[in-house]
């Protein structure tokens, strides 16, 4: 449901309404993916699935998600990672603000251009974490620290497909 010339930029199909329980389920799945016991370069490349899911719903359903889930999931990630208490919570809250603030603008673009927005928001989120750690006396990690933002942005189209798959109306085979 877009006006005039913008129709070709976004998917034109009408999706079913999103239930809050469905959003909660996807966030839970993202948390589980983040908790997977990975090591080595897979861990270095692993995108922050929770951030990606929060960002997705922040952009697509800003009325149905708010700061509280972002903040609570941030605390959970802080404990799971053994990082400073509140660093992910702060970064996720800031990211949620960016997502809700920019949601009208980002959803105007097609998926490729959305990815460019996503990579910037994810990088900003990581920069906040980095800033907090620097303020607390941490050392700079290597450049690879920012890789998860890029892999996260690359996964954006996949996230779109996966998150909207259960929301597509069933196609009636009789309706040729």
């Amino acid at each position: 449901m877009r006006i005039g010339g913008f129709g070709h930029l976004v998917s034109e199909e009408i999706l079913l309404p999103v239930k809050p329980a469905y959003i909660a389920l996807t966030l839970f799945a993202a948390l589980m993916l983040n908790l997977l016991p990975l090591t080595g370069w897979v861990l270095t490349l692993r995108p922050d699935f929770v951030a990606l899911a929060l960002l997705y719903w922040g952009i697509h359903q800003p009325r149905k998600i708010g700061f509280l889930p972002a903040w609570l999931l941030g605390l959970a990630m802080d404990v799971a990672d053994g990082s400073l208490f509140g660093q992910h919570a702060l970064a996720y809250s800031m990211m949620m603000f960016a997502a809700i603030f920019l949601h009208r603008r980002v959803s105007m673009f097609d998926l490729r251009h959305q990815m460019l927005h996503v990579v910037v928001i994810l990088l900003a989120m990581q920069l906040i974490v980095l800033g907090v750690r620097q303020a607390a006396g941490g050392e700079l990690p290597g450049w690879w620290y920012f890789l998860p933002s890029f892999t996260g942005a690359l996964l954006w189209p996949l996230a779109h497909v996966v998150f909207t798959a259960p929301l597509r109306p069933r196609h009636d085979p009789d309706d040729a």
Partner: protein
Amino acid sequence: MEYTPPPFFKRGPSLLTRLSFFAVLSLILLYADARFHYMESMRKVVAVVLYPLQQLADVPGDLGSRVSSFFVTQSLLQRENERLARDNFLNAGLLQTQQALIAENLHLRSLLEMQERVEQSSVSAEILYFGRDPFSRKVIVDKGAMQDIEEGAAVVDDTGLIGQVSRAFPWTAEIALITDREQGVPVQVVRNGLRAVVFGMGYDGALDLRFMPVNAEIENGDVLVTSGIDGVYPAGLPVAVVSNIERNAAYPFAKITCTPTAGVNSHRQVLVLSRLAPLPEYPAASETPKGAKPRPKARKGG
């Protein structure tokens, strides 16, 4: 005339207000955690909530390793069995001599009226996953305070020291590896008894032996063991082998790099040793100031 929206358009406080609320809340938590470590109890509560989720996330990897271990070849098992039997034979010999040595040591210590060493109990634990915080090097193991794991306890594997328990949650514990930047281990060179402190460098496979003078008597291949003078690590645990020494007279200290002996990345089983008996009280500062090195300020006072 006021332009407030009609009540059915009300959406609560504005975006910026909500952001500032949560940002300030996070900053308070951060400050309290980084400065005063006030957040440990709250962290424990969240850890308990997360524990079943972590167990659940561990299932696929666990299943995979079980399936792969099911398809082990006969020859591999035979070889391993042979090796273990040989090791066992060797260890049995060592153990018998060790029992005699322990008895002799006890006797000698009582003769010399020295403080007796306490037998250390230990808990074996399995590494659940590696910490994902890129700023620190930590692993999480599957035993916690309920299994008598205490904060500060030393953690070893079968080849040497791997780290120290930094946080004990009810059913899991967080271990700061010796390769963590903020982790220092007091060590001793086996060859000549020289004491030093090794620090982590923040990445795998390297430790930094700091504050050793350029002319310190230390060589490539020197074995470093814990000295035990800190009262945290028991004495004599292998820590690292000196791998590279750069002596540059332009700097006061030599740059010495070591390789840890324990294989933190190669196996999942670790042993958490119990805490040592507390050391005797540090003697009251009568002639020396409290700090390790006398500072100019202290001189002014005296």
